[in-house]
């Protein structure tokens, strides 16, 4: 029994991280029907902003316990600078284009942002471990787990639950569901679809940035951080079904557990296994586990 406990614990922590990383991607796809490659950039931007701001905060001797707020604030700030710029400045003009073309456009933007990050923060790694170490650790099955990981789990639950509540119970959320179903009809009803796109893009990117920011204390922040996230988030979102919130949660749990099992028992096939599972799911449910209904074509 005690052998399984660490596997499950690792799985949950990793699932939480995956969920935070993927939720913004699926939200943006659900509303705007675009696969946003810059998602990885915002993750990286969040990581760099979080690491550098928090590093400065701690270096100046400010209360370390507030560094968590700094992590959050940094992610929010960096998103508010870049996301509206991208959406209003470039994406807004491209929505009429083919979905693959839009994908290429977000890919081009991703390339630009990769170097922008290098220009701002340089190529040397950032390592800001204080927030991670600060909270100490606790035991599961005899193995120590940094308490910090509970923040990730908490973040996942808050963002997932919060988004679900937002969509179901608030007026804004319900209007967003309308936009998700049919932008044309929404426009005809007088809903400012453009504004919803802006808000969704910003909010979705912010979630990615927060994910990056809170991961920063646990890793060495280096260029190229965003790419692995894109590839993994995509796997999670595809398994769950593009545009589905519960799907992203289920996908994250599945991938997280699978990865945890493989890391413990067969570490060299880690990435393989995740994509194998994705291929397996797609073989039976081509549109993912929870997919939006397909309109009849003929």
């Amino acid at each position, binding site marked *: 029994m005690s052998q399984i406990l660490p596997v499950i614990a690792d799985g949950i922590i990793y699932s939480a991280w995956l969920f935070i990383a993927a939720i913004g991607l699926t939200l943006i796809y659900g509303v705007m029907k675009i696969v946003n490659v810059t998602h990885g950039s915002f993750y990286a931007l969040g990581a760099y902003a979080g690491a550098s701001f928090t590093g400065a905060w701690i270096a100046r001797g400010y209360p370390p316990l507030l560094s968590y707020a700094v992590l959050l604030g940094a992610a929010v700030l960096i998103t508010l600078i870049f996301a509206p710029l991208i959406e209003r400045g470039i994406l807004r003009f491209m929505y009429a284009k083919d979905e693959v073309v839009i994908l290429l*456009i977000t890919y081009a933007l991703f*390339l630009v942002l990769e170097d922008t990050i290098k220009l701002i923060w340089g190529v040397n790694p950032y390592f800001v471990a204080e927030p991670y170490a600060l909270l100490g650790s606790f035991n599961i099955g005899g193995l120590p787990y940094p308490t910090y990981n509970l923040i990730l789990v908490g973040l996942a639950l808050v963002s997932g639950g919060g988004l679900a509540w937002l969509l179901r119970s608030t007026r804004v959320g319900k209007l967003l569901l309308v936009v998700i179903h049919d932008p044309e009809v929404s426009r005809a009803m007088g809903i400012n679809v453009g504004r919803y796109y802006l808000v969704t893009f910003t909010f979705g990117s912010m979630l990615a940035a927060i994910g990056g920011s809170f991961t920063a204390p646990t890793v060495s922040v280096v260029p190229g951080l965003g790419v692995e996230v894109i590839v993994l988030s995509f796997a999670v979102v595809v398994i769950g079904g593009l545009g589905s919130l519960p799907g992203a949660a289920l996908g994250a749990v599945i991938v997280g557990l699978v990865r945890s099992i493989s890391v413990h028992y067969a570490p060299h096939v880690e990435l393989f296994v995740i994509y194998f599972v994705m291929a397996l799911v797609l073989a039976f449910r081509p549109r993912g586990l929870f997919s939006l209904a397909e309109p009849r074509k003929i």
Partner: protein
Amino acid sequence: MSRDRTPLVLGAILAAIIVAGLFLPPWLLFILTIGIARGLVALGLMLLLRAGLVSFGQALYYCIGAYTAGALGIRLGVSDLLLLMLAGAAVAALTAWVLGFLLARYRGIFFGLLSLALSMILYGLIVKNEALGSTDGLNVLRSTLFGVRPSEGWLRYVVVVTATAAAVIAALLVHRYLSTPLGRLAPAIKDNEIRVEYMGASARHAIHVKYVIAAALAGLGGALAATTVGHIDPEMAYWTTSGEFIFITILAGTGNVIAPFLGAMIFGAIHTVAYDLSPNTWQMSLGAALLALIVFLPDGVWSLFTRRKAA
């Protein structure tokens, strides 16, 4: 209907290289060869793009071709350029045939990102594998041709002529393929796959075939690049490499089999200048250029030579 001038132009290019190559400096011959290698990959991408598919992970097969060439050289002492190129193409094609059973079911973004994922898996595998050289990569044997080892002075010339000949043959074969019923199916698949099925053809099968051909071309290019540069490393499977191939394909356009090579040469020129000027802004320049291309020249530079009748 204008007569098909493509074979003529390709033949002229080969003749030009054979003659001009005698007088050009080795560093230029090197750049030309790398351009041809990239052009081969882009030729394959063009085939897929015509069917509406963008592979974000073509570097997978480029890398497979390169590492096949490297492995054959190191393990079996094979250094014949043509043999290595063919071997690279064959291994890549076989891999694509297997993976195609999965990939050919998908379109649009699924296809693109699945292909990206596969290439990143290969990257991960090589990086973790000491026998394959890990992140440092491996050195590759100097090329021979039909048992003859060219002297230092002649090496680049022999390689560029061989590469051009191989590329011309590949281009001619693809050109011919494009006029067959399967080849003609590409724009139809892109426009209306349901109609394709109802005409009695299998879109999935057609895409599977194109995917394998594209992989073979990428493998060919990868093996060529490996033997020309003399070194292989996992970077060849990295997403940035795939991105460069995509850029070349968009830059070139899908109008003609010569276009990818033209695009590769232009890219090579830009890369040589821009990367040396400022390596930290290379991705940015690429991204900005890609954006500009999509907006202002969506059909690539080849569209500047032809005018498509719209109505």
